[in-house]
């Protein structure tokens, strides 16, 4: 089975996520882009698992999902708190921690 298409799609999704994280200011959108990158990775992992004919990649994908779920819980809570105090979800506004 040829997995080229899957890998290419995974690459495209990852790049979109990456660019999104670097360019968007809204914290929620940044967050969504991170999810996109994680799932692009998952896609690549599952595709490679299919090619090698074993389950290693699929198991790794589950781990990534669990971690992503945990991260969403913590991340959304932080974003909510910041929004409540500063009335803004822009990541550029939260720049007090610096030299």
């Amino acid at each position, binding site marked *: 089975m040829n997995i080229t298409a899957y890998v290419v799609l995974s690459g495209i999704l990852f790049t979109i996520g990456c660019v999104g994280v*670097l360019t968007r*200011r809204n914290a929620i959108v940044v967050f969504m882009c991170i999810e996109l990158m994680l799932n692009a990775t998952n896609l690549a992992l599952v595709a490679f698992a299919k090619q090698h004919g074993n389950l290693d990649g699929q198991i790794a994908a589950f781990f990534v999902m669990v971690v992503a779920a945990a991260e969403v819980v913590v991340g959304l809570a932080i974003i909510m708190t910041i929004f409540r105090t500063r009335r803004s979800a822009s*990541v*550029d506004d939260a*720049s007090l921690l*610096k*030299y």
Partner: protein
Amino acid sequence: MYALQGGESIPVVDPSSADGVFALLWLVVALPLAGAAILLVGGKYTDRWGHLLGTLLPIGSFVISLVMFISVLGRDDSDRQVMQHLYTWIEAGHLNVGMDLLYDPLSALFLLLITGVGSLIHIYSIGYMAHDPRRRRFFGYLNLFVAAMLMLVLSENYLGLFLGWEGVGLASYLLIGFWQHKPSAAAAAKKAFVINRVGDMGLSLAIMMFFVLFGSTSFSVISSAAGNASETQMTVLGLLLLLAACGKSAQFPLQAWLLDAMEGPTPVSALIHAATMVTAGVYLIVRSNFVFELAPNAQTVVIVIAGISILWGAWIGCAKDDIKKALAGSTMSQIGYMMLGAGLGVAGYAFAIFHLLTHGFFKANMFLGAGSVMHGMDDDVDMRHYGAIRKAMPITFLTFAMGYLAIIGFPGFSGFWSKDKIIEVALTQNIVVGLVALLGAGVTGFYMTRLMLMTFFTEKRWSKGVHPHESPAVMTGPLVVLAALSVLGGIMLAGEWIVDFLQPVTGVSEHEDPPIPVLAVSAIAVVVVAIGVAVAWFVFGRHAVPREAPRDVSFVTRAGREEVYGNQINDTLVVNPSRHLTSGLLVTDKRVVDGVLTGGPVAIGAIATIARRAQNGFVRSYALSLLGGALIVVLALLAVNLT
């Protein structure tokens, strides 16, 4: 028994184990040590009876020493050495040092001198220090002094000797600086301590060398193996030991502390000059005879140092107006005689010890006498303010006179016998050395007569309000005993007793006749002394002594008053160069070492100031750095895999 040929050493006889009264040997040291501990730890609770306890304990040591001495007299010559092993002090690999005490004829005599004269000084101090609020502490220090000196002469190895040696240094520091509220006393104590350290360096180096060469510091081990070492090694050892002896015994060139040490209370001066401390150097050289017998060059140096010290001390004694400092100069000179005797080898060891004992008697007598005079003169030490004290203080005068006659070597008195013997041996071995010793005897006659005339004769020059009075019996009692010993001390030479007695330690020499008959030597010595006395009489006895020291004096007098420029020489050669070295090192430390050490942190700080600008608080720029980092890692992995 052991007739020495050149290059042969004296074997130490196998000592027997300590039984009978000798089992108490350790108590001799322990009693005064316990006294020091009780008085110094007990604090003010012991104030009321501290001086009595402090006096009784050395007397206890004296009684034990006396019993042991009598018991040893009844034994054979070869059976007069007793060793007591207390415990293993240091054990590490091949190194094994025991806390061993050795009682032999040499330490027997020292024990009697230290505890005997020491006890008398303790008794005297009860009266002398009666009005001092810190008298109890004074007695604690005195006991410590005596205990350390006893340890020094009783130890069977150099390490134990060193323990006592340092103890003596500590006690002398505490006692010289006893009146610490006087800056001069504090400085004098420090000076004595520092100069003694120079000598201690010699002793500690010698001990290390003993360890390396012989694997032991025990006298018996070293003396039996001494022949295996080369002459150069022995010469180095001898010179190191001589350096140590010079420090403790105030010999040239380490003599400068002795005169400043007069800042201490007078009984301390008596103790330092008669029973403890300065005699330690002579003891060290006589005890180390097995080293010096194999190092003729070192012996020559000892003789030269001794000769210089005899004249140097006498010179100081001639010019000082301070009664204690004049006596201190005389001590340096007399110790020079002992060193001379010790440097002359087997022929002189016994006489060095003999002179040490008689000097212990008459110098303690005169120092305590001087203390008694000061006591009556409101602690004035300037002899130009004395005069005609003989009527006011008859007992002090008479006892002092006995000491005076002994030190100048008046025929029949103890000093006559002991000094005469050293002069005789010196003349036999080397005519120049003999003449130096003779000259020293003449100068001794001069300065002691000067001291005697200015203090007890001539007209009254007392300060206003001073009413000399005789000291209490607790002070004059020891004076009388010491005066008797000063007169009769020569009895030890009867039938060459002291020579025979010390034979197991110092060996026997073939008796050589001096180039001129012995009687003629004595006669010449007496004549030389008489000339010295007569000159002193002409200078000081016939005219009124000015109350102020004359200013326009000859160079000789001026140099004498300045202690023959000993302090200036030290300043020029040692103190000032060291001071410059120190300030140079300080500058180097601040500029160079600190520069290197603080330079690193400063540079890192500067780099951090620039680098921390990357920490700008924008999450997206951090994300970019992350991405860049990840890219670099991936590219690096690719590059590695491709090659």
